[in-house]
């Protein structure tokens, strides 16, 4: 009997290698879990048939293009779109390791959101408490892993869309260093920020999936070779590691007391494991990060989403004249959040406002990057809560866009600086998972895996949602 709630990808690979289970049995176990629980959780927008083979199954966020498998990005404007080529990450997953795609997971429309409630196809639900959101935008991938519907998953992160849902669902999620994972074939949100990354049940699984997808791709000129190979973490000793605790990321208004407590307890464990911990400061990154992000991201999004015009693929509205066709296609095809961001971005880029908004935001981005760089002269990594709160009830933030935007307050600054971030579960608050994020300098994924793994062992968090435990 395969327990999909507990099985790690690493253990599944071992069972397959030793022929203790077959590829078909493994696939059927996850399909069974999907049949049993996806009606309630709505993690998947599309479920696939077994392509055959002995590779591990994987869930894939629906912004990642998959040849022959519908890819909607959670939007009506891409309903029925079937890519004619694989994104590079999917090609690598298939060719190198024979990974089999279980299905495409739910996302806020065009990855714009922090709860999956902006999906045109309805929200996903948190496996720990289905009346609450799984976070977003990659809530479908996180809920699928947490609910035992997939051993691991691919997500995408612009300002927190891997880390925040991983935190809210009790998973391990990595937002990689910008440029280490190809964006070729990914539905673009904000090109200077978007990164594909892994969601898993353990740090080692997360590191292994990262090793599969990372590296330079000739189809994406913003990618680079990894300066060192990915190392699967083993040790539990953190002697020689210096961890900074940025005051502003740990004391921000809005951090729930239970979240703060769980993270402080984990920081004490870091010290017990031998790490040197010191307080530090990111004064302007946190104060100005949100404003900076909510100019640069919509500006880039408004440009990227210009391609949805009803000409080459996707939805087209009936119209007798071309301009009318563009306008009606976009009006009818996009939901509220993409429209809001397209409007903000178009305004911020328009003549007369460009310098004050977009130009100034790009300078703030430099300030944020410099502040982080300065801390990494002293520290190997920084630590804070991933999300200020645990999973919130469905509907709690839908009426107020700015309240929803604040879900990503703590993840946004490091994203602006192109830095890697690893979120691991560090405890419960009100019976719901609390995520802790580790931020490193560019290309420091191995350091994050080492710290995350040691902490994971020391904390001993049970990733199976309490209500699903046998």
């Amino acid at each position: 009997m395969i327990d999909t709630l507990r099985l790690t990808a690493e253990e599944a690979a071992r069972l397959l290698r030793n022929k203790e289970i077959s590829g078909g049995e493994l696939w059927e176990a996850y399909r069974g879990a999907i049949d049993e629980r996806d009606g309630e959780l709505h993690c998947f927008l599309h479920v696939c048939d077994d392509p055959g083979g002995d590779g591990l199954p994987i869930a894939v966020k629906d912004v990642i293009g998959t040849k022959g498998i519908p890819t909607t990005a959670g939007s009506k404007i891409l309903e029925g779109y079937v890519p004619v080529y694989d994104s590079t990450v999917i090609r690598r997953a298939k060719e190198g390791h024979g990974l089999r795609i279980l299905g495409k997971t739910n996302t806020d429309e065009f990855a714009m959101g922090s709860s999956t409630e902006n999906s045109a196809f309805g929200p996903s639900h948190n496996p720990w408490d289905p009346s609450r959101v799984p976070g977003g935008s990659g809530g479908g991938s996180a809920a699928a892993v947490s609910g035992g519907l997939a051993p691991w998953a691919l997500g995408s992160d612009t300002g927190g869309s891997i880390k925040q849902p991983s935190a809210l669902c009790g998973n391990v999620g990595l937002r990689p260093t910008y440029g280490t994972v190809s964006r070729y074939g990914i539905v673009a949100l904000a090109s200077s920020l978007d990164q594909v990354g892994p969601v898993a049940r353990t740090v080692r699984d997360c590191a292994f999936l990262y090793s599969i997808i990372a590296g330079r791709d000739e189809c994406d000129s913003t990618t680079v070779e990894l300066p060192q190979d990915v190392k699967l973490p083993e040790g539990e000793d953190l002697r020689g590691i210096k961890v900074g605790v940025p005051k502003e990321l740990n004391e921000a208004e809005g951090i729930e007391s239970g979240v703060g407590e769980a993270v402080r307890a984990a920081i004490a464990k870091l010290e017990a494991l031998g790490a040197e911990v010191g307080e530090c400061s990111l004064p302007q990154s946190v104060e100005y990060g949100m404003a900076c992000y909510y100019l640069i991201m919509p500006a880039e999004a408004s440009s990227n989403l210009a391609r949805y015009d009803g000409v080459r693929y996707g939805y087209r509205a009936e119209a007798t004249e071309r301009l009318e066709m563009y306008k009606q296609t976009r009006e009818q095809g996009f939901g509220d959040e993409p429209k809001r961001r397209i409007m903000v971005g178009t305004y911020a880029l328009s003549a007369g406002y460009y310098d004050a908004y977009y130009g100034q935001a790009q300078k703030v981005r430099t300030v944020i990057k410099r502040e982080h760089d300065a801390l990494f002269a002293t520290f190997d990594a920084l630590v804070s809560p991933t999300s200020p709160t645990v999973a919130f009830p469905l509907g709690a933030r839908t009426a107020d866009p700015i309240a929803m935007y604040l879900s990503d307050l703590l993840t946004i600054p490091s994203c602006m600086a192109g830095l890697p971030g690893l979120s691991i579960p560090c405890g419960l608050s009100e019976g719901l998972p609390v995520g802790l994020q580790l931020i490193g300098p560019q290309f420091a994924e191995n350091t994050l895996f080492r710290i995350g793994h040691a902490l994971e062992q020391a904390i001993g968090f049970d990733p199976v949602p309490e209500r699903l435990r046998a």
Partner: protein
Amino acid sequence: MAIDREQLLHVAHLARLELREDEVERLEGQLNDILDAVSKVSELDLSDVPPTSHPLEVVNVWEDDEPRLCLPVEEALANAPEREGDFFKVPPGGAT
């Protein structure tokens, strides 16, 4: 800086969105709230700070201009809402 109804409709035209009346009314309030929040960036005097458009120090990648395999026409047109022969078909142009 506040955005009024006329500007909002102009921006919607630039973005090729035909907003419904109820959306115009809702967006006017929401956009002003958002612009108010993001205007915080103007508090900082950054006249000496260079902009960052990209988080990595990468330079252009140059390649020889040699033809190689690309999408066959049938695949490129596979998702077309409407086609005519080997072309995407669109309604005739009007005033822009």
